[in-house]
């Protein structure tokens, strides 16, 4: 085991009854690494991500965060989740709270941090994503891209060791995708550990240290981005990438 490994997945399997989503998947993520998972829709990549912070129960295997096994016990699970941030496709801000309240809720209630300090930090982070002026607004008053940037900040403010991004641009209008991806890219540059599921191949290329291609519930290919995109080893990845470049035309 490498010394700077932060997240380790050992042979996890996910099944709904008799239907298997994936079998015996392994993954190791080093501190500061950005791992991007791609694959056709329905390949199980989002489910895989959701297993990493215990949103989905796993039937086999284990997930280790910082060498500690993530249990399925709800009490311990919420403690682990403080360390794993997650941002979803969309609509996950709390509609009854202002932007600032959305950001401060978890640090104050879960981490028992001082409210003033958290607010100050929240404002700094909002400033960074260009949304400080919206801090007293409600989510419904923001555009999709703005909401998604807030959602990222809401995950960041918990100081997670790993950030999971689940197709966070999939529900956005094209012109809003960039403003969200810019934030993701800057996080990658400052060395955040992230596991990203996305369809945005360009960002994958720009942000990833390592690419993973999942198809049919298996890791079909993985590798360093340039190699991955330029010289895919398997026929399935080649086809997958080709379908993308075709769509992009």
């Amino acid at each position, binding site marked *: 085991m490498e010394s700077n490994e932060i997240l380790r997945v050992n042979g996890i399997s996910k099944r709904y009854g008799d239907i298997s989503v994936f079998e015996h998947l392994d993954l190791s993520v080093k501190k500061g690494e950005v791992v991007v998972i791609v694959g056709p829709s329905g390949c199980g990549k989002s489910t895989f991500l959701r297993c990493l*912070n215990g949103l989905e129960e796993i039937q086999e295997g284990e997930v280790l965060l910082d060498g500690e096994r993530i249990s399925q016990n709800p009490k311990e699970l919420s403690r682990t989740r*403080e360390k794993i941030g*997650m941002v979803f496709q969309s609509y*996950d801000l*709390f509609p*009854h709270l202002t932007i600032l309240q959305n950001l401060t809720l*978890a640090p104050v209630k879960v981490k028992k941090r001082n409210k003033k300090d958290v607010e100050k930090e929240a404002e700094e982070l909002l400033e960074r994503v260009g949304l400080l002026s919206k801090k007293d607004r409600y989510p419904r008053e923001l555009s999709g891209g703005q909401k998604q940037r807030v959602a990222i900040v809401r995950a960041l403010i918990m100081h997670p060791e790993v950030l999971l991004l689940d197709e966070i641009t999939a529900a956005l209008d094209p012109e809003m995708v960039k403003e969200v991806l810019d934030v993701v890219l800057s996080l990658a540059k400052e060395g955040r550990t992230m596991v990203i599921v996305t369809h945005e191949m360009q960002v994958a290329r720009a942000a990833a240290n390592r690419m993973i291609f999942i198809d049919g519930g298996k890791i079909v290919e993985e590798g360093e981005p340039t190699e991955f995109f330029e010289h895919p080893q398997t026929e399935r990845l080649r086809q997958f990438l080709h379908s993308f470049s075709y769509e992009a035309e």
Partner: protein
Amino acid sequence: MGFEVLLKGNNMLRLWQGLLVALKISLLSVVISIALGVVLGILMALKLPVLKQILRAYLEVVRIMPQMVLLFLVYFGTTKAMGINLQAETAAVIVFSFWGTAEMADLVRGALQGIPKIQYESSMSLGLNTYQTYVYVIIPQIIRRMIPLSINLITRMIKTTSLVMMIGIVEVLKVGQQIIEANRKTSPNAAFGVFAVIFVMYFLACWPISQLSKYLEKKWEN
């Protein structure tokens, strides 16, 4: 046009007191309906197999039976069947609560099932435990959805309580009739003035409440 009757003696006051009787019955029924409806709504959202069928039958009865028929059933029926001489007011509260509970339960169920799963998940992902998720994230949202609808139920309840005169409760319409009767000779046109005023009184009782409900619904829609 018969308005002069209302200036005589304490006639106007009597009308207001009559309306108050109706309002009291509605308020009591609403409180009972909300309390029972919340419990029942949660049970419905849980989708327990046998209970679900029973509750569905209950909702269907409320859906198709006019409150007036229920009122007759309870008021005249219980006297006959069980030999209990139910007071008309009690019968009214029972019937309106029976009706209101069903309405409320359906609203609660709808509100509960209307909270997207992602709200639970993103809350959990932030490390909030189940208890915190409900207290800070889910229940406030449900309450926001429920308050306008519950307020709306109050106006519907007030309107429905006008029926109680049909089982002999002396409420505003009955008082109106009494006033018209008593002044038959001196003000033969009293019926116009009295019923016009009662019309306005009901409107004044219901309209502000339904406006409030609309306002809150708009303000809190996501």
